């Protein structure tokens, strides 16, 4: 079994290295094939591990070697395959494999084809470390590793120039990449602090030791640690106020968005909260804060998705919103539900993104849904996939999203947090609306793209085949909920609805469904028959507020980035040059001036010299007399 662990872990690494070998050469199709095969290997190994864990209920714990040891700190490269991590592994490798295969088709015209695979596999490797590590430091390796890969991949088309925010809200891929990295770094500092708190209070960063010791710690310490870790999670999972990078990250190639910014990396924050559940369950205040923030983000992101015109951004907002749901669940203590939603979401959201990728591919990278329409004629399969994924996202019964999202909303009710419940329900309606707004605008109605002289075409067949597992999972995954619960609750605390909630569960489900269906109907009414633009609405302040993401990116730009640049510049030109350095030079100049002044006594005239001698004698006398008087 240990061998499988290493295969699962290192196959993506091997894939990355292999692709990197050809990183600077022409497109080589076999690179994509080899990479996909290796990823598939990793998936198979993960699946086998999952069966093993499922079958035996045992976790596999391996320690590869020591990493850092200094003082009392000992960090090994240790990996643990237990119920939680194996779930993540399977999800990650599955989606990655599909995305890899998809990318062979999607990236076929890109001259950096090989490099792309190298990055993508490296990402998977980092993600595997993140989920498999048996200690917080290892988690942090993966954490940063996925950050870097995300940076590389968002900025994959680095050669694009910067443009104004009006033209492209993300400015440029490289800008978006840097934004993502820096925002994540802010959160990572929080995470590091969390690690430090745990280490200095417990003396170890190993999960088992930490979680064993957590119950004996002081409340404030726990709160601090939980909060700090959650700050880390907020960055990676793009929770408010660190959310802006996620939509900008859509500058990356679409497979990247599917894999990283929908299915896997962004859920790392949720994973962290789930993983550290013994800590979070001891800190109800922090947990409640997580739930509340999650709920807020769910609504907040959904609201922005309502009016957006960018195909990928809409999906990105929906991802954000769904992450909010997950945090809400995790914050409320329903860790396994959060994990379940995480997995289900990974499937349908990846599918959605890949579908969007197909559209982009067909539309020659056009993303404005107002310029699309009627694509169903040429892209039947894609329409089908995206439809399925949207249904799952909207929470229509028997699709994956229904089970998981419903459970979360039910949890909110169950915990008695009616406000959260209400918001989540409303958000569910909004989710349905914007998903179908997007689907309808893209695939139904008049063929607006013709104006722009675009000739769309369906994606390659093998790509569509490769996407099918996701579609199937998006449809059926929900039925595995019971066995999943059974599986993961061996590790995670089980969460049961109270008797009362259980009784009215059908009712609650109906409420949610009602909202979802009405959302779809509204979308149908407005957009199914083509785009009718409402100038008045589009110019209203709230529409513009939403369309501009509440002006938050602008605010960040104006109040953080620009002042920072300004202060930096002032620090350099004013403080460093004019004060610090000038002081040093000033001392030197002062000495030089003194020299210049005092050399004037050296007139060359003997008479002056003689006078100096006499003056000196008098001075000497004065000095002697004064010091004699002073000493007494």
């Amino acid at each position, binding site marked *: 079994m240990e061998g499988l662990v290493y295969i699962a872990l290192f196959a993506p690494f091997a894939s990355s290295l292999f692709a990197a070998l050809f990183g600077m050469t022409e497109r080589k199709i076999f690179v994509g094939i080899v990479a996909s095969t290796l990823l598939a290997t990793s998936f198979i190994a993960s699946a086998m591990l999952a069966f093993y864990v499922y079958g035996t209920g045992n976790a596999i714990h391996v320690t590869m070697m020591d990493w850092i040891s200094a003082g009392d700190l000992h960090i090994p490269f240790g990996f643990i395959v237990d119920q939680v991590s194996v779930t993540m592994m399977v999800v990650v490798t599955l989606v990655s494999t599909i995305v890899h295969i998809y990318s062979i088709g999607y990236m076929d015209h890109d001259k950096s084809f090989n490099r792309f695979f190298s990055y993508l596999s490296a990402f998977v490797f980092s993600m595997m470390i993140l989920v498999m590590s048996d200690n917080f430091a290892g988690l942090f390796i993966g954490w940063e590793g996925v950050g870097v890969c995300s940076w590389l991949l968002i900025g994959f088309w680095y050669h694009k120039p910067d443009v104004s925010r009006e033209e492209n809200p993300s400015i440029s891929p490289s800008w978006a990449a840097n934004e993502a990295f820096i925002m994540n770094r802010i959160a990572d500092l929080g995470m590091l602090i969390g690690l430090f708190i745990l280490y200095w209070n417990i003396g170890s960063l190993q999960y088992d030791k930490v979680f064993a010791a957590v119950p004996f710690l002081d409340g404030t310490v726990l709160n601090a640690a939980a909060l700090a870790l959650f700050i880390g999670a907020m960055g990676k999972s793009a929770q408010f106020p660190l959310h802006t990078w996620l939509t900008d990250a859509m500058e990356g190639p679409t497979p990247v968005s599917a894999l990283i910014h929908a299915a896997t990396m962004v859920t790392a924050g949720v994973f962290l909260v789930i993983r550290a559940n013994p800590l979070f369950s001891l800190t109800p205040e922090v947990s409640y804060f997580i739930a509340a923030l999650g709920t807020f983000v769910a609504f907040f992101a959904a609201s922005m998705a309502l009016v957006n015109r960018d195909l990928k951004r809409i999906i990105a907002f929906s991802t954000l919103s769904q992450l909010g749901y997950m945090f809400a669940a995790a914050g409320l203590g329903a860790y396994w539900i959060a994990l379940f939603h995480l997995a289900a979401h990974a499937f349908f959201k990846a599918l959605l993104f890949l579908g969007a990728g197909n559209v982009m591919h067909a539309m020659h990278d056009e993303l404005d849904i107002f310029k699309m329409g009627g694509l169903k004629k040429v892209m039947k399969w894609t329409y089908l996939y995206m439809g399925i994924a949207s249904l799952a996202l909207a929470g229509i019964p028997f699709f994956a999203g229904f089970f998981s999202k419903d459970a979360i909303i039910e949890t909110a009710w169950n915990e008695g947090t009616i406000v959260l419940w209400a918001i989540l329900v409303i958000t569910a309606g909004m989710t349905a609306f914007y998903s179908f707004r997007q689907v309808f605008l893209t695939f139904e109605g008049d063929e607006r793209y013709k104006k722009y002289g675009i000739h769309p075409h369906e994606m390659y067949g093998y790509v569509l085949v490769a996407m099918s597992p996701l579609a199937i999972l998006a449809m059926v995954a929900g039925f595995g909920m019971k066995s999943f619960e059974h599986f993961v609750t061996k590790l995670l605390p089980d969460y049961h609805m109270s008797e009362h909630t259980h009784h009215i569960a059908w009712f609650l489900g109906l409420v949610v469904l009602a909202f979802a269906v009405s959302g779809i109907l509204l979308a149908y009414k407005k957009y199914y028959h083509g785009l009718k633009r409402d100038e008045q609405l589009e110019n209203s302040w709230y529409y513009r507020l939403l369309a501009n993401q509440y002006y938050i990116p602008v605010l960040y730009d104006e109040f953080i980035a620009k002042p920072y640049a300004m202060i930096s510049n002032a620090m350099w030109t004013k403080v460093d040059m004019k004060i610090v350095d000038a002081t040093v030079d000033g001392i030197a100049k002062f000495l030089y001036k003194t020299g210049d002044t005092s050399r004037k006594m050296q007139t060359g005239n003997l*008479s002056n010299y003689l*006078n100096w001698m006499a*003056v000196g*004698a008098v001075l000497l006398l004065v000095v002697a007399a004064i010091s004699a008087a002073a000493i007494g």
Partner: protein
Amino acid sequence: MYEAIAFYLFSALTIGLFLITVMSKNVLYAMTSLAAGMVLISGFFFILGADFLGVVQLIVYVGAVMALYSFAMMFFDATRDIKEKNTPAALIFLLGGLSALVLVLIFAGPIHSDAIQALYPMHEGVGNAQDVGIVLFTKYLVPFEVAAVMLLVAMIAGIILAGKKMDQSLTKDTSVDDADEILKQKDAK
């Protein structure tokens, strides 16, 4: 009483003469008053019983030194009045006055002590020259000989500095900016 009169007379005269030496614009006057002042200084020595010193003062100073100065004066053709941009008088008098004041303060203090034993006492009834001679040729023989060397040095120095050879300088003092000229002249030759 007699001594007091002599002292005050000599003091007044020397101060006056030396003031002329210092203040006069004419070298001749200055030198004459200097010589006269030195003669009077030897008067002090005689009053103080330092006969030998007085004689030496007369011979060496008034004789030799003054003769040297006179020759030098002739050489320098310094009989005319000298035009000097003297240092501002205020500074001079300030410094001179201050030093005088300080020195007077020092000397006016209880510098003299009866407790001090003379190491080389003068002997009653013995001529000053004899006393001096004995000390000079025992205790101070070495300084005496060194003084001889010093005079030798002075003599050699005087001779070679004033000698003809100094007129033909081997080490000229032209700057390199004139060097081109020199080179050209050489080429011309």
